[in-house]
C-alpha cells in the first residue's frame, strides 16, 4: 500500500527538481560573474535548440537539418524589428515567423522520407542563405546589418524563459495523444495513417511548433552579436550541433537532449580553449563515434539501464514481467 508514496516521490522528481533548478538559475545573475552568465546563456541556447529539435525529429525519426533556417529567421527578426519595438514582441514575432516558415517547409518536404528529407532540409537552409545574400547585395547594396544590443542579464533571462517554455511544451507534447501519434508515425507511418491519424497534418504542425522555440532563441542571441549577415544567421553548425547533442544525450527521455547539450557544449569549450585546441575536431569526432557505437540510446539510455539494474538488484530479481522488454 505504498503506491501513494511512490507517486509522491515521482511527482517530486518530475516537478520538484526542475523547479528548484529553474529558481536557482533565475537568481544566478545576482551572484554569478558576468563571464558565467554569458557562458550559461550559450548552454541555454543549445539546450533550447536540442530539445526543440527532439520534439519533432526525436519522436518521428525524420532528421531535420533546417534548424538554422528557423534560428536565422529569429536573428533577422531581431535585426529588422529590434529598434522599433520591445524585445518581448520581437521574440514573439520571431517565433511566429519561424512557425509560418516551418509550416511551409514542412508542407514541401515532409512527403520525403529518410535521407531525402534530411538532404532537402539542408538544401533549403543553403537556398535561404544565398537568397538573402543576393537580396542584400543587389537590392539594398549592403551586406549584413546591425542589431540593437541587450544586456547580458536580459539575454540570460529571456533564454531562461524560452528554455522553461520549451521544456514544458516538450513534456506535454510527449505525454499527450499528439505525442503518441508522433511516436506511432516514427514506428510505422502507414499503420498510423490507417488507424485514423492525419499523418501529414500531425507532422507539419509539430515541425512548425518546434521551430517557434528555435526562432525565439535566434531573436535573443542576435542581440548579443550586434552585427549579423546571412553567413552568421544561417550558420549550418546550428543545424548539425543540436542533432549531435540529442543523439549524444539520448532521445528516449526528455532530459536526454538537455544533458547532451550541456556536456557537448562543455566538451566543445574545453577542447577549443585548452592545450588541445589543435586536436579539437579529432578528439571531438572520436568522442562522438564512441558515443554512437557504445551508447545507442545516448547517455540517458546508459543511465536508465543503470537505474534498472539497481532496481532489479534491490527487488532481488522479482521483475520477470519486464524480461521481454
Amino acid at each position, binding site marked *: 500500500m505504498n503506491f501513494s508514496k511512490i507517486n509522491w516521490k515521482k511527482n517530486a522528481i518530475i516537478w520538484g527538481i526542475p523547479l528548484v533548478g529553474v529558481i536557482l538559475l533565475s537568481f544566478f545573475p545576482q551572484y554569478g560573474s558576468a563571464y558565467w552568465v554569458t557562458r550559461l546563456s550559450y548552454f541555454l541556447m543549445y539546450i533550447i535548440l536540442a530539445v526543440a529539435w527532439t520534439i519533432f525529429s526525436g519522436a518521428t525519426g525524420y532528421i531535420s537539418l533546417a534548424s538554422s533556417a528557423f534560428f536565422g529567421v529569429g536573428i533577422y527578426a531581431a535585426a529588422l524589428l529590434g529598434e522599433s519595438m520591445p524585445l518581448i514582441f520581437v521574440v514573439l514575432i520571431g517565433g511566429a515567423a519561424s512557425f509560418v516558415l516551418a509550416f511551409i517547409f514542412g508542407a514541401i518536404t515532409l512527403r520525403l522520407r529518410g535521407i531525402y528529407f534530411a538532404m532537402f532540409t539542408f538544401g533549403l537552409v543553403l537556398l535561404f542563405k544565398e537568397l538573402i545574400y543576393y537580396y542584400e547585395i543587389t537590392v539594398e547594396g549592403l551586406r549584413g546589418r546591425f542589431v540593437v544590443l541587450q544586456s547580458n542579464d536580459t539575454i540570460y533571462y529571456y533564454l531562461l524563459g524560452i528554455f522553461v517554455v520549451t521544456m514544458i511544451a516538450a513534456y506535454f507534447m510527449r505525454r499527450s*495523444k499528439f505525442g503518441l501519434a508522433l511516436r506511432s508515425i*516514427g514506428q510505422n507511418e*502507414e499503420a*498510423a*495513417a*490507417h488507424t*485514423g*491519424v492525419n499523418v501529414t497534418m500531425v507532422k507539419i504542425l509539430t515541425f512548425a511548433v518546434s521551430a517557434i522555440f528555435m526562432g525565439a532563441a535566434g531573436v535573443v542571441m542576435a542581440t548579443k552579436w550586434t552585427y549579423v549577415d546571412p553567413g552568421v544567421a544561417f550558420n549550418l553548425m546550428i543545424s548539425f550541433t543540436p542533432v549531435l547533442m540529442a543523439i549524444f544525450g539520448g532521445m528516449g527521455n526528455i532530459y536526454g537532449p538537455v544533458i547532451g547539450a550541456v556536456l557537448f557544449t562543455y566538451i566543445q569549450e574545453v577542447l577549443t580553449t585548452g592545450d588541445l585546441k589543435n586536436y579539437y575536431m579529432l578528439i571531438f569526432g572520436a568522442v562522438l563515434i564512441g558515443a554512437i557505437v557504445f551508447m545507442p540510446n545516448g547517455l540517458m539510455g546508459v543511465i536508465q539501464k543503470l537505474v534498472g539494474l539497481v532496481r532489479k538488484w534491490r527487488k532481488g530479481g522479482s521483475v520477470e514481467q*519486464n524480461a521481454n522488454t
Partner: protein
Amino acid sequence: MRILEGEKVTKYFGGLAAVSEVDFSVEQGEIFGLIGPNGAGKTTLFNLISGAFTPKSGVIKFKGKKISGLKPYKICRMGMARTFQEVKIFGGVPAIENVSLGALFGGPKAMSTAQATKEAGELLDFVGFTVPKNIPAGGLTLVNQKRVEIARALATKADMLLLDEVMAGLTPTETAEAMELVKRIRDRGFTVFMIEHVMKAIMGVCDRIMVLHHGEKIADGTPQEIATSKKVIEVYLGE
C-alpha cells in the same frame, strides 16, 4: 443492407492489371471471404478499399458514400479499419498504447486518454491477449502482435474490419482460436472482410466467398458453391 460495394474496380502496376474490373458487395453483419492464388490481387484490393491506393477506374462505396480517392485516415474515421498481411505495429510503443491510438484517433469523436486506455485494455482482453499490456509491441510473439493489431483496428469503433491473412504463420491451435475470434468479432456487430489462405478457416467461418485470379473475379458464392465450382478447382488444382 450493402455496407460496401465496388464497381468495376481497376488498378494497374505499370502495364499489369493487378485488379481488373472487379465488382463486389459485402452485406452488413456478414463474414465475407476473399481467396485466390498468390499474386491474384487480394491485398491490392484491400489497399484500394482502405485508401492506400487510388483505383485507376471504378468506384468503391462504403455505407453509400464514395470512398475511393479519400485518404486512409478519413476512410478509417468513417468506420473502416484494417490489419496488414505483414503485421504493422508500433514496435517501440507499449501494446496498450498501440491500441489506444486507434481509440484516440480512429473513432468518430474525441475521447480522453484515460477513457482510451480503459477501452484498449478491454479490447486486449477481448482478443485473448494475456501477457502484460505495457510491454513494447516489438518484443511480442507473432500471434500476440496480430492480436494487438486486431485490437487496434477494433478500437477505432469501426463498422467494418478488413483482415489480411490473420492466420498466416499461426500454429493449428492458434488458428482455431483466431477462427473463434473472427466469429466473436462478427457477433459484436462488425462486418468482416477477410483474406485467408487457410482453407479450413475460410470455409468454416465465412458466409460468402469471392475468388480472385490474375486480378479478375472468377467466382463468388457460399462456401459450398465455391468448394464445388469447377472453375475454382481448376485454378487451385490445375486442369
